[in-house]
């Protein structure tokens, strides 16, 4: 009998526990069984200024949500489903913490709504929506949309953003592992010495956009991330570069 992924116990035993839900004993058993998964992701998100204990607690909450919502009929292994839920919970934790410092609660809520609306519309329209279009789709004022977009710009922590297909690897990692030929372009680095202070991924995005003159769409395709994400990464990298260079 084969073992269930992410667990030391056979698949059949795990499946049996899920059949017994919502029995509290089965739920607790499952939570214990997959706790190492939660702890693993908590560690992955550590070193960003949040205590590991808090992260573990957040990840455990994500695990419990995953247990409650998992549908064995779907044919997806529980560990895959749980990983996505746990990572989602951790990102939300960082987002709320980051924002709590400087963005009022009502703006945060609007920003989440706007962010969702923009993603959906970008897909539907095949281009970015206008402020007026977002306002009408989300049924809020144009000024609210502008304020929300500002807040989104301010908070986006790209390292936590946009997982690629696999919930456990982030866009950041997949970009970083691409070819490094651009690293050797001294001519390019000499244009803005502060480029050396950026991460490899940030340099790559800027290199593709401004040295090779690629469009956002092309970069999005190449890196397998959304146009919205490319747009944000370009902005953030340019802003960071300005900061590093001691400019505006």
């Amino acid at each position, binding site marked *: 009998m084969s073992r269930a992924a992410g667990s030391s116990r056979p698949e059949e035993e795990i499946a049996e526990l899920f059949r017994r839900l919502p029995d509290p004993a089965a739920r607790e058993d499952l939570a214990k069984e997959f706790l190492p998964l939660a702890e693993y992701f908590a560690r992955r998100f550590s070193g960003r200024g949040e205590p590991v204990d808090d992260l573990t607690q957040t990840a455990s909450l994500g695990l419990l949500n995953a247990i409650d919502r998992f549908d064995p009929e779907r044919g997806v292994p529980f560990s895959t489903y749980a990983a996505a839920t746990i990572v989602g919970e951790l990102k939300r934790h960082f987002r709320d913490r980051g924002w709590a410092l400087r963005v009022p609660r009502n703006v945060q809520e609007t920003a989440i709504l706007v962010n969702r609306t*923009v993603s959906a519309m970008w897909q539907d329209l095949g*281009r*970015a*929506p*206008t*402020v*007026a*279009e*977002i306002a009408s789709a989300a049924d809020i004022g*144009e000024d609210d949309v*502008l304020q929300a*977009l500002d807040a989104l*710009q301010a908070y986006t922590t790209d390292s936590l953003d946009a997982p690629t297909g696999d919930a456990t690897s982030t866009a950041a990692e997949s970009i970083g592992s691409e070819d490094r030929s651009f690293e050797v372009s001294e001519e390019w680095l000499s*244009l*803005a010495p502060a480029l050396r202070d950026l991460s490899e991924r940030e340099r790559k995005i800027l290199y593709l*956009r*401004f*040295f090779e*003159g690629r469009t*956002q769409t092309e970069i999005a395709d190449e890196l397998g991330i959304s*146009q*919205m994400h490319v*747009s944000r990464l*370009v*902005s953030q990298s*340019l802003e960071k570069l*300005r900061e590093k260079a001691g*400019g*505006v």
Partner: protein
Amino acid sequence: MTDLPTAVSVDVPATPGFVQVLRNIAAGVAARLDIPIDQIEEVRLAVTEAASLLLDEVDATSLRMTIGRDEETLDVRLSAEGHADPWPSDRALASWPWLVVKGLTDEIRAERHDGQSPSIRFTKRLERVRR
């Protein structure tokens, strides 16, 4: 589109702090001119870089930004009230900000506005958006 203004213009002191103001105004104006948000962001970044380049290159007292649009293009001009000779310098044309503005827009020119003020003018072709 008939209710759109043909151009919006603003003057600010030539300091880094006011470049921040300019770029926010640029984003706000672009939003009101019914432009998709990714292009708004590009306009905001381009204004930042162009204005910074002018501050670097021109001994300026103030900056003027004029933004206009017609059916197909958005046109932005930043001009510095002040002195630079020559304008544009080779250094300016080979600089990082110039490269960035070039990458973010469809056309960029360095010229003297009214035969005098060093200025950078760029245009962006707009994606068709119907209301």
